């Protein structure tokens, strides 16, 4: 039973990261129907930026949470500028091109960002400084530490804020209108280009937050750290129903839980034949099952033709 609750906690923490990244995917896909392959790399840049800022501020003797907050702000600014320019340079000129073209530039961008990160930050994994003393608390036999609590709370607050932004503000209305039909939205006085840029910036900020959380929780940063979370977050977005914000959140958290449960129990279930190093395939199995059984996702609506 202890393991069960422990894995639920681990799953929720992992799921929070997935949910934040999945939102970026789902918003972009909902508005311009593009899988932004470089989105996972934005997470990586966020984590590495915050690492640079945090390590360089270590000597100042400031309290840990101030350093963490400043490094998070720096990461959000850098990622927002980065994602804004990616869209401007690599996706905007191709909006009317054959469908495969922007997908290829997105993959190219992902490769480019990884390579540049490798050049700037060197390829070796770096330990992320411990900025907040992590005190373990016990809940029903399982352990949760301060950082994990902060992650869960921050994610919940951010998701609530985003829901408010999309459903109750002028920008949110413009975003929903653009997703529905950019041309008609344009006729109604919305500027689709600006809305799309805003979407990329919001997505980048969420990814930066996720990146800093991921780094703080797992304690290590590297140029290749964005790829798998990115891929899994996309899976989460599809799982919940792509283009659907609530779906991305639910999908992210569920995927995190499934992965944690799977990793915790696969050894027992298969009698020791398969171990926890198969953790990474759960996301893909979920993805394949969802797409074949319920292609519109958990909360998505059936769309006639999205090809």
């Amino acid at each position, binding site marked *: 039973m202890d393991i069960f609750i422990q894995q639920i906690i681990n799953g929720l923490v992992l799921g929070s990261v997935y949910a934040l990244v999945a939102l970026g995917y789902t918003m972009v896909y909902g508005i311009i129907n593009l899988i932004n392959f470089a989105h996972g790399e934005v997470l990586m840049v966020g984590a590495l930026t915050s690492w640079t800022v945090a390590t360089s501020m270590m000597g100042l003797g400031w309290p840990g949470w101030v350093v963490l907050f400043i490094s998070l702000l720096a990461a959000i600014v850098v990622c927002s500028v980065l994602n804004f320019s990616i869209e401007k340079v690599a996706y905007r000129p191709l909006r009317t091109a054959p469908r495969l073209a922007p997908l290829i530039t997105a993959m190219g961008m992902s490769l*480019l960002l990884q390579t*540049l990160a490798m050049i700037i930050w060197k390829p070796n994994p770096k330990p992320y400084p411990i900025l907040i003393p992590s005190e373990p608390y016990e809940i029903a036999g399982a352990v949760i530490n301060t950082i994990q609590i902060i992650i869960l709370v921050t994610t919940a607050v951010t998701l609530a804020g985003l829901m408010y932004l999309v459903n109750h503000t002028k920008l949110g209305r413009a975003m929903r209108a653009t997703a529905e039909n950019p041309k008609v939205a344009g006729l109604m006085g919305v500027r689709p280009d600006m809305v799309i840029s805003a979407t990329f910036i919001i997505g980048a900020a969420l990814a930066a937050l996720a990146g800093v959380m991921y780094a703080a929780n797992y304690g290590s940063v590297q140029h290749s750290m964005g790829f798998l979370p990115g891929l899994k977050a996309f899976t989460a977005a*599809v799982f919940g129903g792509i283009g659907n914000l609530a779906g991305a959140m639910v999908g992210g958290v569920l995927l995190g839980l499934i992965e944690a449960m799977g990793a915790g129990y696969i050894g027992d279930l298969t009698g020791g034949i398969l171990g926890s190093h*198969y953790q990474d395939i759960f996301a*893909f199995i979920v993805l394949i099952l969802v797409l074949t059984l319920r292609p519109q996702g958990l909360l998505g609506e059936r769309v006639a033709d999205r*090809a």
Partner: protein
Amino acid sequence: MNLRDNKLITFIIAGVLLLITPLIAQQFGNAWVRIIDIALLYVLLALGLNIVVGYAGLLDLGYVAFYAVGAYMMGLLASPHLSQTFPGFAATFPNGLHTPLWLVIPLGALLAGVFGVALGAPTLKLRGDYLAIVTLGFGEIIRVFLTNLDAPVNVTNGPKGLSQIDSFKVLGYDFGKPHSLFGLEIPSVTGYYYLFLALVIVSVIICHRLEQSRIGRAWMAIREDEVAAKAMGINTRNMKLLAFGMGATFGGVSGVLFASFQGFVSPESFSLHESVMIVAMVVLGGIGHIPGVILGALLLAALPEVLRHVAGPLQNMTDGRLDSAILRQLLIAFAMIAIMLSRPRGLWPVPEHGRIRPGSPDQDPAPKGTLS
């Protein structure tokens, strides 16, 4: 001189050039021939993927899985690994297992084809981006299994991979050893060049014939509009499965060749990165157009390798940060973005026939009856 003779002469010149290329290249060192060999392997892979992506319009990001299937099959059937791991196996084949080329290539093609159909079956309903992600997931699953199937039964030897794989032998000719022909030194890499070239030519012919055939036209109809294709009586399910299977076959054969050429396979060679590279070759060259695809594969496979040789000074200049592997990646990334931005349909796209150009004599006069 009429056109037919012209074409014949072009063919002869091209043939002679292809035949002497490695002989010239080996004067500068076998490393260069090796680069050409690898490029030819990529041509084969790109041609195979072109069937799936180019003709049938199914974006497959897990293509490298079939390459892996072929390579590992060759690795298991022609290396000491199985006999070393299983005592019972060693008793059955006291000399170890050395499956000949004639058997391994069709077997690899068949096995990869079965994998292709197995992968295609559950994904038939999906299209576009969804299909891309699912195939990507399949590719990753295969890689995870290759990495972890060393326990409890050691099948793939885990991350260490399989080594000591046999080189090809045809009619007593061992591709793994240098030979001497009429006083001409033929190193192993040059022998492989001719083998790969032969297979590439066969593949080009197969692809060309497929493109012109009823099957090829059915694929393109599905690519353009699946619903319409179905309405015209095309069995879209079988055709899509056939495309997956055919494409995978090419991947399997390339894998077999790769394993025997390298003598060594490990999961590292079959990362998602490779899949992306192959897709990039097809799309950059000109999707669905055989010469374009070949151009794309040669460019992306060979150019960065050539640059690797000039990267030394640059590495010294930048304090070791910009080594050849990084430079290669950087270049590929830039190429992918820049070429797509400037030529979204690829470097050498399919000529647009059947479409009326504005201003041509047989253009329809202004459409009637719409708003008049």
